[in-house]
């Protein structure tokens, strides 16, 4: 009985979520295709968007890449910079929080770099590396690096004294305390940092491609703007949204397997 109620309420909320999308698309369709409030050249109706989306999946015009190709190009660069940021940022944050000298050494530099938004690096990177892959990977790296460091640092600092005492009374060495007490404590925070970094990486890649690129979703959008193709712009935005949501979803699954002993909602 309770199980049934649970399923029923779950279905109800699912319907509610679906309704929001349906209502939005309907209003869009009604105001463009029926009421013709906007010219198709300014805001096309949803049916046109779907058509363009399907065509663009396999056609390279007008920017020289298919939707799939552009998406892959963006994802590849974003993930390379992102993974490097995790590999460097998380250990750095952990070490800063655990070893005071590391903190003292790194902090001034880090505090100076931290407020500089990732995309503010783009002009300098273009000057140094040109508009190729390298400059964008470095921009993504710098963007994703900050939340990785900050969250790992904060996480390690959450370690409870009483847990450290327990570790000590059981004879754990300083390194053992770090690996068996502090890092597990920090793991939920580290995962949050990794999740935030994913979002900002994805934003930064699109921004970087809008400014300087020869392929990718941002580039495709920028090209479509130049020739007044709002349908392609919207297709690009849809792809950005969908890929971002998908990556967040996948990371959520990873998180559930990594972070133990908390109530997963």
């Amino acid at each position, binding site marked *: 009985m309770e199980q049934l109620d649970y399923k029923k309420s779950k279905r109800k909320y699912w319907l509610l979520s679906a309704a929001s999308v349906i209502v939005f698309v309907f209003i869009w369709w009604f105001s463009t295709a029926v009421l013709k409030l906007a010219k198709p050249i300014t805001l096309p109706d949803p049916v046109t968007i779907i058509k363009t989306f399907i065509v663009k999946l396999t056609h390279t015009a007008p920017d020289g890449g298919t939707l799939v190709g552009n998406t892959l190009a963006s994802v590849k660069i974003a993930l390379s910079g992102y993974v490097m940021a995790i590999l460097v940022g998380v250990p750095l944050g952990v070490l800063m929080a655990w070893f005071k000298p590391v903190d003292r050494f790194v902090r001034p530099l880090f505090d100076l770099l931290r407020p500089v938004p990732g995309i503010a690096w783009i002009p300098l990177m273009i000057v140094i590396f040109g508009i190729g892959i390298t400059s964008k990977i470095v921009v993504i790296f710098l963007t994703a690096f900050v939340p990785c460091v900050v969250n790992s640092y904060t996480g390690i600092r959450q370690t409870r004294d*009483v847990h450290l005492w*327990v570790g000590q009374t*059981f*004879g754990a060495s300083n390194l053992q305390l770090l690996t068996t007490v502090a890092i597990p404590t920090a793991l939920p925070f580290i995962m949050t940092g990794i999740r935030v970094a994913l979002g900002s990486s994805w934003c930064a890649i699109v921004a970087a491609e809008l400014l300087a690129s020869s392929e990718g979703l941002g580039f495709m959008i920028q090209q479509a703007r130049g020739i007044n193709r709002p349908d392609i712009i919207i297709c690009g935005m849809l792809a950005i949204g969908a890929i971002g949501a998908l990556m967040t979803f996948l990371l959520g699954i990873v998180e559930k397997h990594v972070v*133990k002993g908390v109530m997963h909602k």
Partner: protein
Amino acid sequence: MDRERQIKNKMITMQHVAKTFVTERKTTRIIDDISLEVKENELVALFGPGQCGKTTLLNVMAGLEKATSGEIIVNGEKVTRPGPDRGFVYQTLALFPWLTVMGNVCFGPRMRGISKKEREERARYYIDLVGLKGFEDSYPVQLSGGMKQRVGIARAYCNEPSVLFMDEPFGHLDAQTRYLMQDELMRIWEKEKRTIVFVTNNIEEAIYLADRVIVLTNCPTQVKKEYIIDLPRPRDYVDPGFLALREDISSVVDKTL
């Protein structure tokens, strides 16, 4: 008598131990010259008013904090730092939330590099002893307060220390669970005798559990008086002897706001 047979060797000796905390603004004397002895397999309760430095005293005995002066010897060795021969049961939130019951109980042996098979076998014995058979794979978040404290006790026992320190382990439990856990601790202790130093601010708990109650003064803490509790176990809260002791101890303990 049975108790005399079991309690003969000295397990803990503290001599003129003092502890002073120094900060930039002021120095605070927490412990003022305490000397005491605890014998093997004895259950001693440290009982004192509110913030009288009981926990500090326990931390000093465990080696978590250094004594400013004086000497502590546990099982023939001078205490300079924490070690696996001294187990600790804390008030609450001391379990590792990211480990299962099994993982928590195994923690001590794991730190000492004991093989997985051996430590899990040993952990199973103590999990069973504290009455948590079947909960090996549960996470602390899934357990009630009383069950968490059972895990805490099993974890301390599993490392096979010579002394167990318990810092108000039942302090955060509701009254009903607290009584239950006191009986459980008695049952566990009768089955697996250990030297236990038990800090409490609950006078009945002290008399109910301990072989000996050491009453501490307000800060800076000294030993006010010692009581040997030779009431037969299991004890009864409304037994005239119990009530007389309660009356007596209440009259000597310092009052605080």
